[in-house]
């Protein structure tokens, strides 16, 4: 498995084989943003871990060469982040991104370009928002037969203000695309959270779904758990744990986070 560890946006450790190519570009003076370029040459798994004790400004470019698949796991701890992602997928590619964010604050802009037929992206975010977190995702289906599934799950606690904005674009004549998005925030504060689910579709031959939900734990779920003798507090903890763990295949990191906030 390929792995990069970043400290304050600098590579401090890496373990890479010939399936993936990493380039770090010098900081642009004007914007003070570092650029990390990742090229996936052959099907592979890649883990990126971030830690920070100061503000990190980083652009990450990810390129998938034709006929490749990449399972990318990204874990962020602590720090304040401003990140821009530009993702380019050629034909017959599959990108499965799993992100777990437990940071002080974060602003992310992600632009997905599905630039070849049968390009698929499956994106899953789990975040514990404690201050300000804003995620803007744009998915461009630039070819026919492309597929996107965007899932944003956040739990908002303490002073958190969490915002998701997700836009899917299908231009005219790009047929047989699938555009899914599912956004949910469990807001355990009185702060205001936002979800903006957008679908910009100029083609009839498309399957598109979106869902957005902000609220506390669902009353009917709480009732079910409490009807088995579980206290309100324990039931809420169980539901949050379930929400954060659902759809994840590796629970190691999320279990650490759950223990940290919900002992």
């Amino acid at each position, binding site marked *: 498995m390929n792995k990069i560890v970043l400290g304050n946006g600098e590579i401090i450790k890496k373990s890479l084989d010939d399936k993936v190519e990493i380039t770090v570009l010098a900081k642009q003076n004007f914007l003070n943003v570092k650029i990390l370029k990742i090229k996936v040459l052959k099907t592979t798994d890649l883990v990126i871990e971030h830690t920070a004790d100061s503000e990190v400004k980083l652009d990450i470019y990810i390129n998938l060469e034709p006929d490749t698949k990449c399972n990318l796991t990204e874990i962020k701890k602590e720090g304040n982040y401003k990140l821009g992602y530009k993702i380019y997928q050629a034909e017959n590619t599959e990108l499965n991104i799993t992100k777990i964010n437990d940071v002080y604050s974060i602003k992310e802009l992600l632009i997905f370009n599905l630039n070849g037929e049968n390009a698929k992206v499956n994106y899953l975010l789990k975040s514990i928002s404690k201050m300000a977190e804003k995620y803007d995702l744009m998915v461009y289906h630039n070819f026919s037969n492309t597929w996107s599934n965007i899932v944003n799950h956040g739990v908002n606690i303490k002073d958190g203000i969490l915002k998701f904005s997700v836009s899917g674009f299908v231009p005219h004549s790009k047929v047989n695309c699938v555009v899914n998005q599912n956004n949910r925030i469990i807001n355990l504060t009185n702060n205001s959270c936002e979800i903006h689910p957008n679908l910009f579709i100029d083609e009839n031959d498309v399957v598109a779904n979106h869902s957005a939900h902000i609220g506390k734990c669902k009353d009917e779920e709480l*009732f079910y758990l409490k*009807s088995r003798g579980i206290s*309100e507090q324990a039931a809420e903890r169980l539901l949050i744990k379930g929400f954060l763990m659902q759809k994840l295949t590796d629970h190691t990191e999320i279990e650490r986070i759950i223990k940290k906030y919900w002992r």
Partner: protein
Amino acid sequence: MNTLKIENLTAKVNNKTILNNFNLELKSGEIHAIMGPNGTGKSTLTKVIMGDPNYEIVKGNIYFNDTKINDLKVDERARLGVFLGMQMPMEIEGVSNADFLRTALRAKDEDFKLFSFVKKLDQEVANLKMDPEMIHRGINEGFSGGERKKNEILQMHILKPKIVMLDEIDSGLDVDSLKIVGESVMKYFQEEKPAILLITHYQRLLDYIKPDFIHVMTDGKIIKSGDASLVKIIEEKGYDKIKETGTSVIKENEKDE
């Protein structure tokens, strides 16, 4: 001996009165079945007993033994030993059945032993002919209607309640599953001697679970009570006829005497 006593209970939801001066007493070792047309308040009764906050008690009392439970929270009632097998059990993705049951059992039993729990769980899963893998999936996640009902019965076996309410536990079950569930409930009844309250529309469930008392409920109250022979009368005459012929609460066996 445990008793659940419902006295002159009137309850409403969304400003609509559903239960109207309802009375019933259940004792350990008794099986009661409530039958009645749709929309007469049968499910509401079970929800009110369980303490669903969507339902408001306007008047009347519910007692578990000598304790008035009107103001107890849902989880407090459950820990006393009241159990509701739901008509449409929730699907909760991410919360595994095993984790859920372990948490529930820990809440109830301070002397919780993990090994005994796992052993009992495996045994009951096998008895109910459930897929052992289901126990590690989210609660009712991807379960068919029948599997959900079996999961309710599994929870009953693990939590060992003293008052068991089963709301249309037969719906969604094929003939084989109905037999498994019916026999499993009777096995629990014979071993633990709880009080059981069944809500059902169909005779078929009563082929396996043999009630001591049948109650006909319309308009939020019991209009007729009797023994198992009342089911045949219901099937022959229908609820409307029973409603017409009398609203007094007469136990059929008492009538014979």
